[in-house]
């Protein structure tokens, strides 16, 4: 879809909502239809058809994130059964690269959004806190790709990370203090000073150079 084509109202709305260009939307729409098998919505099972995804150790977490109401900005918790193309785009827009002309405030907001996505992935019970249990879960999955790292060591790593988080966020604790979990503010604190520019961005291609796999 070039500039010569007139944009439909629908697409224009999506552009303003998600920040994708109309070409990118077109591209993603094609992919969406491919995934859904021509249906207007995607269900979890549809993601299972992507062979490349199979090797991803945190696949279930990522797919989960696509249906997470918090990410879809629909509800503070719960899961959607199916998502339509707009939802799909919203999730994708978390990974849009930073525009070069953004000001400080926008950058900060953008960064926050992206981190929130990750936070939601960790915080599986939507209580606004990553508890040790949740953290361990993620770490176990994250490291499950390496057959040489057992569950035990994954756990101790998660524990270590949790300690670190606690020491960063709370500092010196009173002996009777309990660190219940990483809140989003703590999470932001941990990310302070770390560039996520390259870490959380996918360059969505404009052109048709996308390999139409499978």
């Amino acid at each position, binding site marked *: 879809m070039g500039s010569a084509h007139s944009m439909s109202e629908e697409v224009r709305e999506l552009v303003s909502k998600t920040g994708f260009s109309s070409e990118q939307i077109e591209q993603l729409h094609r992919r969406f239809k491919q995934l859904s098998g021509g249906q207007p919505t995607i269900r979890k099972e549809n993601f299972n058809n992507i062979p490349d*995804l199979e090797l991803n150790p945190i696949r279930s977490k990522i797919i989960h994130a696509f249906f997470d109401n918090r990410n879809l900005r629909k509800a503070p918790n719960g899961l959607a059964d199916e998502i339509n193309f707009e939802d799909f785009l919203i999730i994708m827009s978390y990974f849009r690269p930073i525009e070069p002309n953004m000001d400080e405030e926008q950058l900060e907001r953008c960064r926050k959004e992206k981190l929130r996505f990750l936070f939601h992935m960790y915080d599986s019970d939507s209580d606004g806190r990553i508890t040790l249990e949740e953290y361990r879960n993620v770490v176990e999955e994250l490291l499950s790709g390496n057959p040489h790292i057992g569950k035990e060591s994954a756990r101790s790593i998660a524990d270590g990370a949790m300690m670190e988080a*606690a020491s960063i966020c709370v500092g010196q604790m009173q002996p009777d203090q309990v660190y219940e979990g990483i809140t989003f503010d703590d999470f932001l604190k941990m990310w302070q000073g770390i560039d996520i520019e390259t870490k959380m961005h996918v360059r969505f291609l404009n052109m048709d150079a996308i390999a139409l796999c499978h």
Partner: protein
Amino acid sequence: MAFRVRGTTQEFRFPVWGLLFLALWMLPRVLGVEEIPGHNSHENQGFQIVTFKWHHVQDPYIIALWILVASLAKIVFHLSHKVTSVVPESALLIVLGLILGGIVWAADHIASFTLTPTVFFFYLLPPIVLDAGYFMPNRLFFGNLGTILLYAVIGTVWNAATTGLSLYGVYLSGIMGDLSIGLLDFLLFGSLIAAVDPVAVLAVFEEVHVNDVLFIIVFGESLLNDAVTVVLYNVFDSFVSLGADKVTGVDCVKGIVSFFVVSLGGTLIGIIFAFLLSLVTRFTKHVRIIEPGFVFIISYLSYLTSEMLSLSAILAITFCGICCQKYVKANISEQSSTTVRYTMKMLASGAETIIFMFLGISAVDPAIWTWNTAFILLTLVFISVYRAIGVVLQTWLLNKYRMVQLEIIDQVVMSYGGLRGAVAYALVVLLDEKKVKEKNLFVSTTIIVVFFTVIFQGLTIKPLVQWLKVKKSEHREPKLNEKLHGRAFDHILSAIEDISGQIGHNYLRDKWSNFDRKVLSKLLMRRSAQKSRDRILNVFHELNLKDAISYVAEGERRGSLAFIRSPSTDNIVNVDFSTPRPSTVEASVSYLLRENVSTVCLDMQALEQRRKSIRDTEDTVTHHTLQQYLYKPRQEYKHLYSRHELTSNEDEKQDKEIFHRTMRKRLESFKSTKLGINQTKKTAKLYKRERGQKRRNSSIPNGKIPMESPTRDFTFKEKELEFSDPEETNEYEAEEMSGGIEFLANVTQDTATDSTTGIDNPVFSTEEDQSIFTKVPPWLSPEETVVPSQRARVQIPYSPSNFRRLTPIRLSTKSVDSFLLADSPEERPRSFLPESTHIP
């Protein structure tokens, strides 16, 4: 090395007294001053006790002396921090070279020592490039590979073509006067002056500390443009010798083809040798001592091989380093790895030093100087201007595709960082004077360009970077969370690319790492290494070690580890078990001290336990403790010589052991207190209740205890467990895992022995032990300035109950983890405050 030394070559025979003059003679000899033959030498007197055979050792001697001079110069430079922080070392070395060259010339009136291309390309360049490749941050490098390649290939061609053509254009206008140069000569000159030099870039940028991306782009470009330089140089060189009129279109096509052959071939050679190297190191388990040698030899072979096949040698050795680093680092032992690291750095920085010094020395030779102001000035102007233009054009193109945009500031630094160096010089010296008529002009221009870029730009780039506020690289401590999140991001991104159906950077990386894990690592890594090579695990390990080391360091700061070892609670004896460094103390003294200490300790122990009237057992325990923790002074150890085995220094061993014991102590006491709690608090499993109790107890003066340290060392234990899979118990492994396994072995062993005491003495209940805690330990008195976290650490191994409490450990299953599961990490502080404690 091809140092040409002029001077007499006859042998001098000295009687013994002649040696006295040796020192006086040496200097002029080395500087090439003519000797008066026969001076001071007597007639042959038959058998000579000492003969002076200068000629015999001349060449290596001079080489060694030059290296010594260069190294000493480095020391001198660094005596003044002020100078080195402003002036880059490379510039200082060049100036030094100029001065030395001046001295030599003044003495000899001929340039005796020059940097010859052979020496440079065969001996000085490879270590530097290997070092660059072997320590290349791979992820960063491959992440920016596209950008680097564009700059390296298109940028270099652009620089060469524009510089050469512009010079030719100016030449036609007649400003340069009458030179016998054709278009091809200009292009040849352009091609050799165009390439940014890896040695110079590295030397200057290492001191500037710009951000990683900027650094990798400039540096990567300087490494990868070698193929372009080599090809352009060879092509134009052959064109020049062919003659301008005989060059056909076919030759041009051949030139382009040869570029691909040279660059891809060089890369391929590098990869093949990297594969070989990784494979070899997989099997070097039993020849640890020569293990580091393989790294150097095989990479050097890759360089020579591609040189032999006239491929890009720099590319070959770079990629050899890049590709093998992961597997080699995993395969070789930690000591070998350190050896490789230091040797490589030493060779590289030594070679760099020599290169710059000899660049200076080489310049002092009137024979090569042909001055042509217009030519030289215009070359300087053109290379700077075209570099800037090239960078801006390419960046404009790249920024359309790059995720992280290259700002204008970055572009300025990139343009300004285009330093020329020894590669250009070596290439220009290689030119054949018969074919290239104005070789001397080219040589002098190159020298001027190199000096200008290294000295002037090197001097000014630092202020420039500061003035422009270029993002600096920041060195951060590795954080576990950061690594974990980073890993999560990687997976998310590749998943997003999968889902959105594009083949992007993350997609490729993901596929590659899968392939690497499934095939390459299995093939190229030892099985034991495969296990521990996860990045996250490494960071985890590192952090734990750091923690532990700081713990021990705290002990050292206080003068001893006694605070860990001493089972006594009385503040009189914070006994210094570990005497000052044994080397400084007479053996007898330390022996005496040891005796003293043991009695004191015994007494304290006895004193403390007297009321319990189980002194015998206590003595046994004490003796046992003493045996464990007292170390003989170093003098008592025999040093065995073995060429094939590096017996680890006893002192080192001792330190290590202390460290292990300390760690073990911490773990044990931690675990045991934990267990103790569990026994006494069987009913109180609930969080809130426990918290309530703690609050009640919290008036005990144990200060603020950060929850961090204990659990980390607790996890440390788990980590070690992980390392000690049966497969690993091989003796070699056990020795080299730098103590990881030894540590574990200690733990299990000692637990077994110690715990018997525990069983034998059921009298000591946990309650009694813990009552000790209620006393205010000496280090908690207000004048102590220990940081709280250290206090917490100090307290952990603090009780003699270590031994007695071990029983429950043995009884408990190994899944200590369940405690952590039940109680959150802040469990630890609680263990200090058992219910039985009362406010004193």
